[in-house]
């Protein structure tokens, strides 16, 4: 029998709903299988754990080829908000929670959440800017230390 995955460390580096959700679903799914999971938020991915921003994450309708929407149409005011609200409704039916609830859920499931020090310094953020589920602000070296013996997934 092949060796089981027992530990994953997932990097969430992109902002926007499509940037944040895949990593959250993978981390939560790992915990559901009894796999140890760490989440490392960096660059715009950090929005998902910033208190003031986590509830306002949208899907980009401009510059997002996955949306199959002409640029000018996507640029109409309110278009991104509308696409976001439609997507959220669909996700809610599938029991995929909004970002703040998802962060709470994955944390309650036992995943550990970390913020990237380089980004925190760059954006001049403080520990208080983050939601309480964040364990610590750590540098890359510490991330590798924490990830030892598991798989690293970059999203």
């Amino acid at each position: 029998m092949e060796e089981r995955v027992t530990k994953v460390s997932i990097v969430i580096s992109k902002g926007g709903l499509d940037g944040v959700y895949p990593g959250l679903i993978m981390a939560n799914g790992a915990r559901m299988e009894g796999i140890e999971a760490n989440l490392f938020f960096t660059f715009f991915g950090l929005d998902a754990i910033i208190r003031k921003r986590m509830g306002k994450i949208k899907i980009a309708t401009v510059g997002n080829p996955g949306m199959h929407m002409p640029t000018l149409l996507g640029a109409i005011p309110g278009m991104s908000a509308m696409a976001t609200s439609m997507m959220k409704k669909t996700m809610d039916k599938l029991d995929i929670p909004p970002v703040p609830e998802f962060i709470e859920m994955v944390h309650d499931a036992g995943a550990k959440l970390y913020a990237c020090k380089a980004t925190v310094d760059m954006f001049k953020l403080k520990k208080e800017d983050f939601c309480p589920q964040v364990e610590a602000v750590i540098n890359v070296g510490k991330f590798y230390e924490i990830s030892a013996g598991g798989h690293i997934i970059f999203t």
Partner: protein
Amino acid sequence: MPQKQYGNASVEVDAEGFLTNPAEWTREVAAAIAKEEGIADLLPAHWKVIEYMQKEFKETGQAPTIRRINKTGVVSTKELYELFPGGPAKKAAKIAGLKKPEGCV
């Protein structure tokens, strides 16, 4: 389909040990599966989850998600992970005699 013996009961299971016929489920079978899954005793909180899952399954044809179990106030997510360590949705479904959950969350 393979048969599995739990005490005096012989039940039909799939390749991963999930019951294929919910009618063959009994509380004794549940306790025996739980033991196999590393849960020595099923406490009242376990039964609360198991009974809720069976009720939901009867109504919707699917085992409820962890989020739903939390939101409906059965037990919190944290508690659920403590009750069924190492894979709560899957383990609880197995003990409840339901098929393996198919969703991603």
